């Protein structure tokens, strides 16, 4: 699910054994190679935009998008939207993490909890989270509350399912060994079950966060929050401000990329390295 390191092939070319000059040259080549597709696509875009087949309001030139980006950033509008979006994402996700991990672990530990929650979770999980949006809007009104609750609700499912699987797959023999050595319930949980299930729980958190991210923008469009990147894009449509929309999408892409590189890949490396196992 998470992105592989995209420029990995380049990193391998510039191995540390090479002399300085060669390494610098290789790095330069990698940079050029990475820039090439963007230049080609950017050039094509610019070409089509200048041809004037489409009205310039709908298909702005790249300078206009960049100008909109700079203007909105300098005015502090774009950062404000971005901060609100990220805050909403983290709020919903934190809710889901706390509830999801607790429910998932309870399901893994107690057969009764499993029997109670599993049917509910298996009914709720296959419905795309966004489909609940109108229901949440009817029940909780417009604005922040339904948006955060919905994001939390959606990302809770993978967290619950993975925590549950993680606890269930803790090796029976570890549990029995710990018990034979006299571990009490509390110790057993903290020292054996939790570390054993952690790779799965982290995977669940990662999937939950990426699902939350994928629907958050649309949720913002629907629930009419006062600030937020989704709302920015959606509102700009009314005035045919395609340049603003594309600038907003660029910020969304940057946040998504940052989540991918800084959060998901770190989490994966952390678990894989620390426990020597590859999850997912």
């Amino acid at each position: 699910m998470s992105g592989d390191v995209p420029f990995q092939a380049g990193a391998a070319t510039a191995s540390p054994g090479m002399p300085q000059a060669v390494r610098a040259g290789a790095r330069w080549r990698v940079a050029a190679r990475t820039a090439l597709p963007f230049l080609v696509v950017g050039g094509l875009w610019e070409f089509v935009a200048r041809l004037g087949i489409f009205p310039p309001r709908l298909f702005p030139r790249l300078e206009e998008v960049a100008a909109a980006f700079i203007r909105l950033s300098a005015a502090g509008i774009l950062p404000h939207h971005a901060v609100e979006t990220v805050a909403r994402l983290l709020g919903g996700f934190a809710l889901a993490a706390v509830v999801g991990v607790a429910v998932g672990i309870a399901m893994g530990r107690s057969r009764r909890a499993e029997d109670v929650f599993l049917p509910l979770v298996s009914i709720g999980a296959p419905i795309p989270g966004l489909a609940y949006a109108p229901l949440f809007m009817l029940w909780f009104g417009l604005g922040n509350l339904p948006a955060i609750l919905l994001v939390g609700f959606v990302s809770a499912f993978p967290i619950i399912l993975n925590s549950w699987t993680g606890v269930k797959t803790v090796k029976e023999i570890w549990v029995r060994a710990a018990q034979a050595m006299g571990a009490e319930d509390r110790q057993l949980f903290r020292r054996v079950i939790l570390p054993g299930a952690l790779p799965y729980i982290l995977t669940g958190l990662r999937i939950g966060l990426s699902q939350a991210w994928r629907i958050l923008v649309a949720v913002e469009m629907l629930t009419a929050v006062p600030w937020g990147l989704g709302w920015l894009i959606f509102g700009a449509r009314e005035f045919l401000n395609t340049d603003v929309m594309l600038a907003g999408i660029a910020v969304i892409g940057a946040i998504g990329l940052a989540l991918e590189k800084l959060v998901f890949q770190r989490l994966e490396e952390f678990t894989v390295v620390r426990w020597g196992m590859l999850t997912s």
Partner: protein
Amino acid sequence: MSAPGQRMRSFRRAAVTLTVAALLYEAFARSGLFAQALAPTLPTVGRTLATMLLDGTMPRHAAATLYRVLLGFGLAAAVGLPLGILMGRFRPVEHFFLPLISVLMPIPSLAWVPVFILWFGLGNTATVLIVFYAATFPMTFNTWTGVRAVNPLWLRAAGAMGAEGRALFWKVILPGASPLIITGLRQAFVRAWIAVVGGEMIAASAWGLGWVIFDAKEFLNTDVILASLAVIGIIGFAFERLVFGAAERGTVQRWGMVRTAKG
């Protein structure tokens, strides 16, 4: 681990849970804490669902949604799978497309909805393209990974036994990459399914399950919302279990690529 007796008990408990949940909801709906329009009783929802199924509106909404999701998914497969294979086999293709993909993939497909509405108007085209956008990347990405992850030993063994170009591709690379290709298709469908519902809500046209949910909100027809949610859940579940489960059993498991015990 699940002896018949235990499975029976789990089944009974599941039934009890669902009944209790339904009764709680029913009590809540009848208590009058929430307006009837916002929390309809379960018989009302059931009646609405039955009416909509019988008078043909619900099948028509479902057909519109399925048409969009399958068209977008098919287009994505037509582009994503060959692209992934080419990226896995040819370095220059990989160098060109990988940076683009890693930049475009983290953008949620639904962020494009307003732009696509402006470019293509409301209706089918915008929704199908959003599904296409959502589904292409997981397919390409997983196919690429799958082709690259084919055991080099198999390639050399097949080469030593005289397999060339075409035979190598059809007999070794494609089956070898298939577990990840199927994973990619699966992920792509999940995302396509989310995208189609969201796309229909925003890029509204006259038919579609996403549209009907969103439209019902305007008129406080919560029973219609809940009935459509049930249909959406059933279709999504059916695809996940029946279509992709069957695809996996028919190919990967038959070839012994993954342990059958996993499912």
